[in-house]
């Protein structure tokens, strides 16, 4: 694992880029740690620490905006947490080469997901103009504010999405990434939840995913807390700046740049692996 100042700087840069691109910092930091000489098995728990910190940092703003659907998040998280625990347990028994190649595959899929993100699907509806943004009690439906309009939505196909979340959690546990790059498209494309709500709800759920995986790594003594805290300190600062930069930069340009970066990381990992 690199020195503490390098880890702080790495955490800050990766969280900044992750927040600007809306993909989370761990997707960048875990491959970056491996490229800097850390074992993939060492980097994964550090990645989950940054996932937990990133989820915590983003939560107040997303919650205040009425974008998080807690009921939906908790339903799918029953699967994702179970998958994460399984993935974290399996990661201890998998060889370094396999973990590195898996990380490359994760980076590549994340790059494609960043490129393929869809635009607006759920249109505003005049009937709901006076509706408060947020989830509707007792249901997996709700409404969110889009400019001056209100967009209603209702989650569909919960069963298939639940199974997909099991896989997303497994990837989180084994690779140390948040899994938001899988969870958000699952909620958006399978459950037909608006992307903004899906992304905010994913951010909430990855905090629980991280807690589930960190529990396994802590119990197994695989957590380098000194290195992890350095990355978290840098990551929280970088995420704070990145969230403010996000509204200034062109989302399309940022997503394409990040996709190129993740694709390059995947290529380097494959060559190294």
């Amino acid at each position, binding site marked *: 694992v690199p020195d503490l100042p390098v880890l702080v700087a790495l955490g800050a840069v990766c969280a900044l880029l992750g927040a600007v691109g809306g993909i989370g910092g761990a997707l960048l930091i875990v491959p970056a740690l491996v490229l800097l000489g850390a074992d993939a098995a060492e980097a994964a728990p550090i990645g989950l620490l940054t996932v937990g910190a990133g989820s915590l940092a983003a939560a*107040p703003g997303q919650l205040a905006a009425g974008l998080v659907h807690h009921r939906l998040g908790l339903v799918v998280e029953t699967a994702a947490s179970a998958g994460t*625990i399984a993935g974290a347990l399996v990661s201890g028994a998998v060889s370094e080469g396999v973990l590195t190649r898996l990380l490359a595959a994760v980076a590549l899929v994340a790059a494609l997901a960043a490129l393929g993100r869809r635009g607006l699907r759920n249109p505003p509806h005049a009937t709901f103009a006076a509706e408060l943004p947020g989830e509707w009690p007792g249901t997996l439906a709700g409404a969110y504010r889009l400019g001056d309009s209100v967009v209603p939505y209702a989650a569909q196909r919960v069963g298939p999405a639940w199974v997909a979340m099991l896989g997303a959690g497994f990837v989180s546990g084994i690779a140390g990434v948040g899994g938001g790059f899988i969870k958000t498209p699952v909620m958006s494309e399978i459950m037909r939840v608006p992307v903004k709500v899906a992304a905010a709800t994913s951010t909430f759920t990855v905090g629980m995913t991280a807690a*589930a995986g960190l529990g396994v790594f802590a119990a197994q003594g695989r957590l380098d807390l000194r290195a992890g805290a350095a990355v978290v300190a840098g990551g929280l600062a970088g995420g704070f700046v990145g969230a403010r930069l996000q509204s200034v930069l062109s989302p399309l340009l940022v997503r394409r740049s990040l996709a190129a970066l993740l694709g390059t990381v995947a290529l380097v990992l494959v060559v190294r692996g």
Partner: protein
Amino acid sequence: VTGPSAPLEPVDPRADRQAALVAFLRGAGVVCFVLAVAALVPGEAGRVARGGVLGLLLAVPLARALWLAARWAVKGDGRYAAVAVAAAAIAACGAVVG
């Protein structure tokens, strides 16, 4: 003319329903950052702070789920209260099975 000059606007009981949770999460984020910086200090203080970072990142998501479960149970939404308790229990299992 007596009474209020303007008609009363209906107040949605769901307004600001998450205010307490938002304040809790904002405070937890600040504490996490302070602990993470303190964790870089060598010695006993740094060791304690490192444990604090881990404890916070483990406890806050579970506390959030349990807070929601309690709130939903009080409001009569028992089905999703049970889901929230189940999600917290599964996440907490990581430390047990590890």
